[in-house]
């Protein structure tokens, strides 16, 4: 039997790469396989860290591998999940490493839910363009809301959950329930009206609905609901469905809570913590005032020490001592001055005695006057036979001039 290897054309055999290249040249760019629109169900999805996404697109009989490049993945407006039906636009190509044909998806949109999603995207884009989702629009929640609005269905678990949490955590507040339909025909208008009714009655509002299917939650993607949230003058916490459900209400609201219970926790402070703060305030007040009192107490004790009887006695003793010292000084000085004065007086008197003519007379001198009392200082003043008076220390001698003898000069 002639083997393939021994056949004469062995040297003409294609390499695998050559074959795949040939396949690619036929498939790639073929008009029937370029810019095709395919509908099918999403099979397994894989999203490696590279940022690309791989999924299979299938129907009951066949499947085709699809790949999305990063930019396409980024532009997706829904979560690509197994089981959903999608419409894919793209080009067929061959992946050389596997020799496998695949669909390079350029656009993927959901069908079935598609009508919903389209509306969702349209509303979302329009409101975003108007700035309704802008961060600077987000208002801060009050620390201690006195009145909490709760917009939800009275029939739902959400109301029960919210009330249970508030009862436990924050009995200080008042809850104003504004009931509404949360699903089905008329729900959007009902929610919007319920939101409008609580205007000016509350400090904060919770818009809540328990979990449900995408269709069940759909009213919360309605533009009328979004605008009612936006025009509410108080902050709104949106809690629609479970953690993974995102609605347009969540975008417009000031805060998004993953669940209604979480919304209640976000809105209301825990009363246990509040008690703690009050107790802490009390402790600080006590400590500070005690400090102040201690400081003032020290001052008072110091002043009191100065005022105590012993203190005064000491002061008085000091004062008296000073007075004594002063008076002693005065006395001593006085005596000294007096002695001095006496001394000076005696010396003055002595000097006076020395210059008095009486003292001279006492030593034996005499003063001679004429009959009329004129001093006789010269022989020329009198003549022989004149009566004169000779005054001595203890009396007067009446005498007559017998003879004049002039001193020879």
């Amino acid at each position, binding site marked *: 039997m002639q083997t393939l290897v021994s056949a004469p054309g062995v040297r003409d055999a294609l390499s695998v790469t050559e074959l795949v290249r040939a396949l690619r040249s036929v498939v790639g760019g073929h008009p029937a396989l370029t810019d095709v629109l395919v509908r099918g169900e999403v099979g397994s999805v894989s999203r490696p860290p590279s940022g690309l996404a791989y999924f299979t697109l299938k129907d009951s009989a066949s499947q085709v591998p699809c790949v999305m490049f990063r930019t396409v993945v980024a532009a997706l407006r829904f979560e690509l999940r197994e089981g959903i039906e999608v419409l894919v636009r793209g080009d067929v190509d061959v992946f050389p490493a596997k020799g496998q044909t695949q669909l390079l998806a350029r656009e993927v949109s959901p069908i079935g839910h598609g009508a919903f999603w389209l509306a969702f995207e349209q509303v979302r884009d329009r409101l975003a363009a108007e700035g309704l989702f802008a961060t600077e629009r987000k208002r801060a929640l009050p620390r201690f809301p006195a009145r909490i609005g709760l917009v939800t269905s009275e029939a739902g678990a959400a109301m029960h959950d919210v009330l249970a949490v508030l009862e436990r955590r924050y009995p200080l507040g008042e809850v104003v329930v504004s*009931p509404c339909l949360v699903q089905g025909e008329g729900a959007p208008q009902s929610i919007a009206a319920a939101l409008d009714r609580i205007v000016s009655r509350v400090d904060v509002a919770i818009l809540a609905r328990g979990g449900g299917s995408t269709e069940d939650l759909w009213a919360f993607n309605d533009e009328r609901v979004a605008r009612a949230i936006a025009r509410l003058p108080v902050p709104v916490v949106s809690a629609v469905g479970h953690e993974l459900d995102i609605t347009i209400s969540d975008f417009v609201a000031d805060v998004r809570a993953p669940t209604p219970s979480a919304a209640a926790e976000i809105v209301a402070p825990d009363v246990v913590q509040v008690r703690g703060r009050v107790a802490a305030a009390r402790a600080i007040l006590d400590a*500070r005032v005690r400090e*102040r009192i201690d400081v003032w107490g020290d001052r008072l004790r110091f002043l009191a020490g100065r005022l105590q009887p012993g203190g005064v006695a000491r002061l008085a003793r000091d004062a008296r001592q000073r007075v004594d010292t002063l008076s002693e000084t005065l006395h001593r000085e006085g005596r000294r001055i007096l002695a001095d004065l006496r001394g000076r007086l005696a010396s003055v008197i002595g000097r006076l005695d020395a210059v008095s003519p009486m003292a001279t007379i006492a030593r034996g001198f005499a003063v001679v006057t004429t009959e009329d009392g004129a001093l006789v200082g010269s022989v020329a003043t009198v003549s022989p036979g004149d009566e004169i008076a000779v005054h001595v220390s203890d009396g007067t001698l009446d005498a007559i001039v017998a003879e004049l003898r002039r001193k020879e000069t």
Partner: protein
Amino acid sequence: MTEKTFEEALVELESKVAALTAGHLSLAEALRTYEEGVALVRECSARLDEAELKVTRLSGE
């Protein structure tokens, strides 16, 4: 004058604490601030003790 809200009472209490902590009050002012603070502590505590969640329902659907 309307009754103060719990938050107003708490804010006032915390401002008393801050004033007393700052320490520039005279002794008389400090004592008055302390007394006012303690009154607010009592008020807040009483409100917390008496608190009971009130639920009202709006009609008009």
